[in-house]
């Protein structure tokens, strides 16, 4: 490097280092100011004077401060003369550089000036700018780092469990426990879904398990857990709706079909019993008249009365095959109510076996044919519509064709086919059922979390007027009126039954539960399964449901009035069994709970 250029090179290098130091200086200043401001803001937030900053907002503020510092450092005016003078001061160059910068600019012909420039260039070779401008953190930068570290710790330390308040630890422990409990239930459904290869349920169970596993592992607050559970529940409900839409809309429920079949079977049974009774009466009457059995003297000339009587006698007496067939039909009806596709198939297989045996009399076959018609009619409109059609065809065939063994075989085969049909469509039912179980588990878990530990939803008692409770400080059930710590007000323990059998004013049962209670009352305008709008009580334990109007048979909501979780249900059952309920009201209480039983 030529001597002439040394000065320029050195000044340029010095300028760069000065610029860098300026950036560090300004960044330290702005960062310190911002960090202090954030710290004050945080303290104000902790003291409740205003809303404290979040990690994100603090990060943004600090980031902006750093950016501003860099900008200020870069735009700070630094002239060449400033660089020269600063360097002179730091290197004991005795104004050589600054003088050289000025003399160079003046471009004079003075030999002394030129000598000065030469001299400066020569000395500049040994100029150690690193020593002159060491890159080190300024005091402001160090202070800024310290304050930023304090901020960081202020956000980080509360995440450590050791610093959590007891209440928070308990809350998180509760969430984890609840997640574990829900997982236990969902695993059962998952197992079923795996075994039965139920696609939707399996996927739902998997997702639910994943969410619950994450909840168990992380420190999720109750609020966050409830939000996650609500989202999951909503997702599952949407899935449910899709599945319901995929099946034939506006279908009749299997419950109803089961009821119809049972009704038909009951009627048949009653007819048999009536016939049986008539037979007995006739036998009795015959005994009184001194007539012996088999004596035909009582018969009229055309024997019609006797035939009628015999006919009745014959009706009353079923063959074993017919009995088995009836049992199979009962079993099928029950399997429909239970939505158990395997048992439905089993029942129909059993029926097919009896038909194939050919041990039923023509009358019995006729009766069976009628029952099958009724069966087909009952199944019509459900998702077993195809089975209904098959059974209807079978019944038609039974009516028209001669029931020889060959035909019976064919009919039995058709029956078996119908059974398989049930089994197939049962998979869809099972999937929906399993999905509903998973959804129920999620909802139960959410309600348990909302209710808090050990609490449950209060169960209002129907037909109970409000009144003072028995005993001082106790409700009618002998329980203290004030709820225990951690317990939701209005839990079964706190529910009061007054002297006159009504609910105690002091029982703290919400007004909405009184409405629910009124629903079971015979004079209530609300029928069972009506959805009404509820409001949350002070302890946030009631679900809010929307009113859809009085349901009639066409719009059976099928939604329980409310869904008591396991604990209050058990509490209720236990309460029912106790002697605390007056005997006169036990039946009413029992009827009420049966009316709201979703599995009725």
């Amino acid at each position, binding site marked *: 490097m030529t001597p002439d250029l040394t000065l320029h090179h050195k000044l340029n290098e010095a300028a760069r280092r000065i610029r860098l130091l*300026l950036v560090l200086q300004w960044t330290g200043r702005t960062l310190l100011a911002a960090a202090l401001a954030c710290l004050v803001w945080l303290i104000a937030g902790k003291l409740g004077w205003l809303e404290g900053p979040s990690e994100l907002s603090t990060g943004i503020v600090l980031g902006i401060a750093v950016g501003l510092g860099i900008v200020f450092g870069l735009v700070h005016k630094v002239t060449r003369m400033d660089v020269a003078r600063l360097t002179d001061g730091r290197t004991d160059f*005795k104004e050589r550089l600054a003088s050289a910068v000025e*003399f*160079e600019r003046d471009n004079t012909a003075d030999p002394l000036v*030129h*000598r000065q420039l030469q001299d400066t260039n020569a000395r500049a070779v040994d100029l150690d700018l690193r020593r002159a401008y060491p890159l080190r953190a300024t005091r402001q930068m160090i202070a800024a780092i310290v304050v930023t570290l304090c901020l960081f710790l202020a956000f980080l330390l509360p995440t450590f469990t050791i610093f959590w308040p007891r209440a928070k630890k308990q809350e998180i422990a509760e969430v984890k426990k609840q997640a574990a409990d829900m997982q236990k239930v969902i695993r059962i459904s998952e197992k079923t879904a795996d075994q039965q290869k139920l696609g939707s349920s399996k996927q739902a169970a998997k997702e639910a398990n994943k969410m619950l596993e994450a909840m168990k592992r992380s420190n999720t607050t109750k609020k966050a857990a409830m939000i996650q559970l609500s989202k999951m529940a909503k997702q599952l409900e949407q899935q449910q709706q899709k599945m319901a839409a995929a099946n034939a809309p506006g279908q009749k429920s299997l419950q109803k079909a089961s009821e119809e079949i049972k009704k038909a079977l009951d009627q048949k049974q009653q007819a048999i019993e009536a016939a049986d009774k008539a037979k007995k009466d006739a036998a009795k009457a015959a005994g009184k008249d001194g007539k012996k059995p088999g004596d035909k003297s009582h018969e009229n000339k055309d024997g019609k009365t006797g035939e009628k009587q015999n006919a009745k006698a014959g009706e009353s007496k079923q063959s074993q095959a017919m009995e088995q067939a009836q049992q199979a039909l009962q079993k099928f009806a029950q399997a429909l109510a239970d939505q158990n596709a395997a048992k439905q198939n089993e029942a129909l297989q059993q029926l097919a076996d009896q038909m194939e045996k050919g041990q039923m009399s023509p009358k019995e076959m006729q009766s069976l044919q009628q029952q099958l018609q009724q069966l087909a009619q009952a199944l019509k409109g459900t998702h077993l519509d195809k089975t209904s059609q098959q059974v209807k065809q079978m019944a038609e065939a039974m009516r028209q064709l001669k029931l020889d063994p060959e035909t019976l075989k064919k009919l039995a085969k058709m029956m078996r086919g119908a059974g398989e049909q049930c089994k197939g469509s049962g998979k869809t039912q099972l999937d929906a059922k399993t999905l509903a179980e998973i959804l129920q588990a999620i909802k139960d878990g959410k309600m348990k979390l909302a209710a808090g530990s050990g609490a449950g939803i209060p169960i209002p008692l129907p037909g109970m007027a409000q009144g003072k409770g028995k005993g001082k400080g106790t409700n009618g059930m002998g329980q203290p009126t004030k709820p225990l710590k951690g317990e939701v007000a209005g839990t079964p323990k706190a529910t009061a039954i007054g002297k006159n059998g009504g609910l105690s004013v002091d029982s703290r049962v919400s007004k909405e539960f009184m409405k629910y209670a009124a629903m079971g009352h015979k004079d209530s305008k609300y029928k069972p399964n009506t959805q009404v709008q509820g409001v949350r009580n002070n302890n946030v334990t009631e679900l809010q449901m929307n009113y859809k109007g009085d349901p009639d048979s066409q719009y059976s909501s099928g939604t329980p009035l409310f869904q008591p979780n396991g604990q209050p249900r058990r509490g209720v059952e236990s309460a029912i069994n106790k002697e605390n309920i007056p005997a006169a009201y036990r039946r009413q209480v029992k009827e009420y709970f049966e009316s709201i039983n979703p599995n009725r």
Partner: protein
Amino acid sequence: MDNAGSVGSVDIAKIEREAAEFGSKFRRVKEEIRKVIVGNEPIIDGVLTCLMASGHALLEGVPGLGKTLLVKTLSQAVDLKFSRIQFTPDLMPADISGTNILLETPVGGKQFQFQPGPVFANVVLADEINRATPKTQSAMLEAMQEHSVTVAGVRHAMQQPFLVLATQNPIEMEGTYPLPEAQMDRFLFKLLVPSPTFEELSAIVDRTTGGAVESIQPVIEGGEILSMRQLAREVPIASHVREFAVKIVLATHPDRELATDHVKRFVRFGSSPRGAQAIVVAAKIRALLEGRYNVAFEDISTVAKPALRHRILLNFEGEAEGISTDTIIDGLLSRVQDETRVKVTV
């Protein structure tokens, strides 16, 4: 950078040589003086600086510190004509400048002939200058400023180089005539001669009470001094350094922005522009002595005190408080340094 058309490498080499010679000659004279004078290095430097700067020096110190000896030794070392004027109250101006005397011509006529006074020397020692009357002091003033005297309307120029070294006693001020400000202003430097230290006094005693007598050899002559003076004046000064010197002088005035609280409180009058001239010239000489070709802040700061201490007039409060002008100069030096510091701080 190199204007090849106007400045050749020969010129630069010559300058370099001359600068080197300046320093070496200065040091040689100083060494020669130190053969006789013990210690007082700043005083010797100051006196020599005054010589190189075409200025005069006022030496203030108690009797017996070697002020007269210093001047005599200086005149020997630089091979210049030396004269001493002992100022007394009865000294007349003509006793300094000279007078016309009536002389007989060889042809028997009479004519006036100018007889030069003791001031017509290269190095003039004006001993105890504050003992003479103001009238006599003013005669000295003209010689110091104009480097000439006017007698009977005829101007008589001094020989060059011309250096007046005046002395005054800070004690025994009774019956003396303090130098007027106008005359004080003509001195480039006011040098305070301190008492010797133990080691210095020991050396003095050794040298002066023994048998050996040091002889002083002339090191440089008048012509060389004149070239050295010329070279010193040519040393370039950057604008920011010049501004520093100017601000220092302006800060001595109590009505200026840069004046410190001390200046505002204790100073009646500040330095004249001669103070700034003195500072700059002396700083140039100092820069050259250090082998630099530019004036530095350090040079200015070093020469500020001797150049300004006699130019700042204290008010009654300042004198009553016993404030020294040196203290005031220290204060305003730091103030001006802060003012002229680079605005960028890293």
